[in-house]
């Protein structure tokens, strides 16, 4: 067996982390993207820039600040301690939080583009046909933005799988808790277990390729708005 049980548990943990992160991001990213695509507010620029920050910042920077905020002396750490949850550093919950921030632009931006592409006309049409805003969201926006949701989910998931720096900064390297595939590969290499590293790294290459293949081949010519 080329992959050890430690490798498998790292893979399992990674999949859990990526799935949970994607679900959370779809839930909180949708209203943010909707707001960014519709608002004429002055805040549109600053909020958009903050959401996009993880695209340009080194993961260590994000990890560093998260470590400080979530740590025992950070604001968020004190809040979680007050709630009786302890601190989130070096925990799976902490990893989820870090991933949500780190992968946010990969979910928000495709959604924002999809919502912008829909424009305001279909929403006006729905309103004149007696659909209230919630009804319009579910019966018009959601189906019309479906390609955007698919892209956002795939990118959010894949980007979380590929996360390394943030995890190492805030999660460390705890088996079954915070040791994801990327960290496991790092360990293998550190321990000169190149064969093990090869198998795991190779799997990542194949996985990522398949994900992107699915993404790009699903992008057919866009159905026009008529």
């Amino acid at each position: 067996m080329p992959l050890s049980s430690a490798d498998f548990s790292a893979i399992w943990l990674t999949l859990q982390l990526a799935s949970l992160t994607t679900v959370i991001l779809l839930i909180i990213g949708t209203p943010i993207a909707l707001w960014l695509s519709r608002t004429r507010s002055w805040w549109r620029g600053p909020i958009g820039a903050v959401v996009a920050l993880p695209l340009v910042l080194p993961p260590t920077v994000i990890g560093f600040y998260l470590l400080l905020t979530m740590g025992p002396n950070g604001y968020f750490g004190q809040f979680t301690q007050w709630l009786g949850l302890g601190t989130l550093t070096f925990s799976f919950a902490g990893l989820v939080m870090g991933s949500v921030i780190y992968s946010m632009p990969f979910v928000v931006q495709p959604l924002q583009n999809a919502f912008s592409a829909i424009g305001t006309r279909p929403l006006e049409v729905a309103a004149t046909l007696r659909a209230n805003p919630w009804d319009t969201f579910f019966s018009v926006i959601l189906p019309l933005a479906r390609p955007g949701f698919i892209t956002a989910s795939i990118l959010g998931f894949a980007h979380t799988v590929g996360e390394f720096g943030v995890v190492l900064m805030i999660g460390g390297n705890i088996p079954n808790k915070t040791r994801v595939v990327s960290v496991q590969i790092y360990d293998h290499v550190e321990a000169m277990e190149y064969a093990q590293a090869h198998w795991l790294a190779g799997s990542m290459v194949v996985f990522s390729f398949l994900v992107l293949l699915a993404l790009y081949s699903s992008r057919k010519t866009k159905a026009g708005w008529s």
Partner: protein
Amino acid sequence: MIEVRLQLKYSGFALDVDLQLPGRGVTALYGHSGSGKTTCLRCIAGLERAEEGFVQINDEVWQDSRKGLFLPPHKRALGYVFQEASLFPHLSVLANLEFGLKRIPRQQRRVDMAHATELLGIGHLLDRHPQHLSGGERQRIGIARALLTSPSLLLMDEPLAALDSKRKSEILPYLERLHDELEIPVLYVSHAQDEVARLADHIVLLSDGKALASGPIGETLARLDLPMALGDDAGVVINGTVCAYDEHYQLLTLQLPASQLQMRVAHAPLALGKQLRFKIQARDVSLSLQAEEHSSILNRLPVTVTQEIPADNAAHVLVSLDAAGTPLLARITRYSRDQLQLHPGQTLWAQIKAVAVLA
């Protein structure tokens, strides 16, 4: 009765109208692009919010800014037809039609699917997808979709403007049927005089965000103080009643409203008593002091001169006439005016060279 008072300011544009419109029939909001007609319609629908506004459709008040009342569009019993049909691309034709219908409580439905599809001739398209339809078909579905919400008011924003003339003439008969068969009042935005002449009972002339005139179509088109009279296709619209048919010459005799005056037009036979709308262009009306019996011109009406103004070119004048209560316009040369010594109150004969039957 429809009451609309709106005040709205953008940079470089202000809408300020106060309109009392009939609660039935078709009212055209007519004007050039930028005159504010679409903005006016959007404010009535609640798609845009006029800072100061009062909108009442028969018994329903949709906006009253003094009381802080503003119903969002989805709470207004309106149908809206956009310039582009704007069908939902993710839904079939049937699902598009049902979108509004299924959001209307059953007891409030006054237009059913069978009626709407028959009225607009779209029964054969229900399984199709919007992408596979012609522009004219899409617009008919857009109209049916709006009707199926059983609106108290149908708002149409240049529904024919995006179509070529062939598609236009394909849809116009359906719009006329709506007008004839449904009790729903319609506000129809247009910058095309031929559409307005054909469909509207009442016309509001908008310019720079203000209403220059609002009145019944026949009278308003004949007013010399409005810019429409100066246009090349200026003319009047008359609703005549069919009172005889000459089978041998295939001529239809029409009686002008509220008078004994009659006109004859070449037309297929029609039932007696039926209303027929026709247009007489100012340039097709000539004036003469005597009734010239020996002429190929079929229609001669005794008229009284009411007013006369210079036309848009120096050689012509525009004359408004009264034919026993029906207003007419004539565009004649200034030379002829002087020859006839034309003056208000003068009675003479109007010879009408051509009559365009509209519907």
